[in-house]
């Protein structure tokens, strides 16, 4: 089929793809212009919102001395490891719960407690058990990331039509095969939505962990910058977090775009 490409169709598709990819950049540009405008018109005191140039110079300084990269790398590490753990648990437990609804009733107090207890309440435990290094932050990330993955996995797998389940049963598919070839692809759109939430929450998890006790990481940087009234650096750190979150989010969105390619076919 690929050999029969219709040349007429290509430019339009090409244009649309680029439009999609460039759209976020356009929005970002627009925001910067808006920001400059606010600064120029003095709508918000520069103490609270420094102009883009000030932030840009703070950025270039933080980049030049390598500090930003070091902090970002720490946070990224915490995020990624936490994400892997949280998502791994979320998927597994979500699958199990989807299969055994009573389990949801049994575990919900535990799971909801885990998600809704503010970190300050168990900060001492975290510091004592996991020290002041990355481990504690990995845990906070894993905890916050776990929940959306879990509930979306449950919802995704439960949404499966029983007729397809019958098909797989009749083909004597193993549990793993059923998961791999039926449940996972069917639940994927919903699971990926959960991952979108998780990927942005991962930043929050890591940073909040860093607020409690940390030397490195963007959370530590933001606190340090804030305590020195270095608002441009605060904004640089915040934007770096957003960048990390956006990167992860885009990755998930890209996976979604690839994996759900078959869906786009039916929209003629």
């Amino acid at each position: 089929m690929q050999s029969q490409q219709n040349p007429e169709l290509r430019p339009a598709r090409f244009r649309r793809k680029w439009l999609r990819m460039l759209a976020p950049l356009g929005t970002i540009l627009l925001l910067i212009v808006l920001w400059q405008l606010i600064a120029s018109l003095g709508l918000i005191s520069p103490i609270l919102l420094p102009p883009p140039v000030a932030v840009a110079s703070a950025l270039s300084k933080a980049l030049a001395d390598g500090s930003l990269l070091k902090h970002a790398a720490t946070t990224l590490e915490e995020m990624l490891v936490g994400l892997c753990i949280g998502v791994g648990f979320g998927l597994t437990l979500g699958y199990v719960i989807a299969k055994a609804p009573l389990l949801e009733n049994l575990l919900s107090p535990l799971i909801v407690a885990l998600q809704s207890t503010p970190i300050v309440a168990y900060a001492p435990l975290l510091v004592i058990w996991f020290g002041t290094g990355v481990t504690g932050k990995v845990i906070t990330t894993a905890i916050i990331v776990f929940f959306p993955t879990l509930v979306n996995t449950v919802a995704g797998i439960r949404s499966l039509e029983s007729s397809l389940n019958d098909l797989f049963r009749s083909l004597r598919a193993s549990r793993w095969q059923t998961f791999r070839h039926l449940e996972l692809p069917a639940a994927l759109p919903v699971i990926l939505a959960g991952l979108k939430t998780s990927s942005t929450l991962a930043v929050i998890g890591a940073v909040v962990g860093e607020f409690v006790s940390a030397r490195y990481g963007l959370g530590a940087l933001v606190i340090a910058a804030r305590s020195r009234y270095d608002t441009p650096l605060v904004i640089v750190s915040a934007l770096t977090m957003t960048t990390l979150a956006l990167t992860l989010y885009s990755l998930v969105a890209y996976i979604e775009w690839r994996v759900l390619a078959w869906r786009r076919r039916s929209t003629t």
Partner: protein
Amino acid sequence: AQDQPLDERILLTFVPNVQFAPFYVGIEAGYFAEAGFAVSLDHLQEPEVLDLVAVGQANYGVVSGEQVILARSQNRDVVYVFEWFQQYPVGLVYDRALDLSDLGELRDKTIGIPGRFGASYSGLTALLHDANLTETDIEVSEIGFNAPEVFCLGLVDAAVVYINNEPLQIQQLANAGDCGDVQAVATTSVASQVDLVSNGLIISRALLDDDPAAVQRMVGAFAKALRATIDNPAAAYMASLAHVESLPREISFLEALEAAAEAQSDFLSELPSRAEVADSRVELANQLKSHFGSGTLAQFTILLNTIELWDADQLGISDLASWQAMHDTLQRMGFLGESPVELSDAFSNQFVVAIE
């Protein structure tokens, strides 16, 4: 005073707490009202307090001195007009058995600290400098605001804390046998080594220029309230009850305090000296200790401890030397940029001097 009381918001840090007793006394005993203010209190993080004062969202705030220097180095034109804490409240807490009174002993020890920011970090830096040490000579552990737990579980050798509060908490844990091998704690306060500028009242430069008369009234009212708190802590505690909901308020305890407050005001009418007043506080503490448990007394004891940090012959005066010491400390920490901060602009004693 004006006919119409002026609504005024004072931004404090942290959460409502007996350590803010002078403000509660100012409200409850009517010092602010006499000066023509209807005061309300808000609690925010320190940087927020400072920024909101700097941009004119609130006229008055309370932050520690180093914040003023840091903020001024970042173009916040705030002025420190009343040094509330005469002594820097930060210090080192450790097991008395492990004698660290010679600060040189700190070498290679693990020191817990909330994080590399704020008063505790400046305090630690100043202490180390005084002992001719640097951060690399010790092990710094960022433990957040969890010092008692972390210390008692033996994860650090010493912790940087507010000396009016945490040592007391840790001592209580030790008394209950919940603090490992620690029997008794010892503290070394920063103030005993260096004079650093500490918490005080800030306003914006704009307010200072526009309405110095109002500032004068506010500073005067606060000075009175502070003195009243120092003079009569039992009455201050009673005034705090309306503002700090979780204070212990057993009837017998409140009755005892009520009686003590009355006795103290009689005593005060004899115009005792500052030393005599201080003795009266010690006496009151001892007297209460024989009737009430440490749990009931904890917050009151904190108040008494804190009063020691406030008390001075003339309240509110800050001197350039302590500002300079703080400035040097911050510079050592690398927290200040190249451009020098003009310290004489950072604070003003004009209102304190003009009281009476």
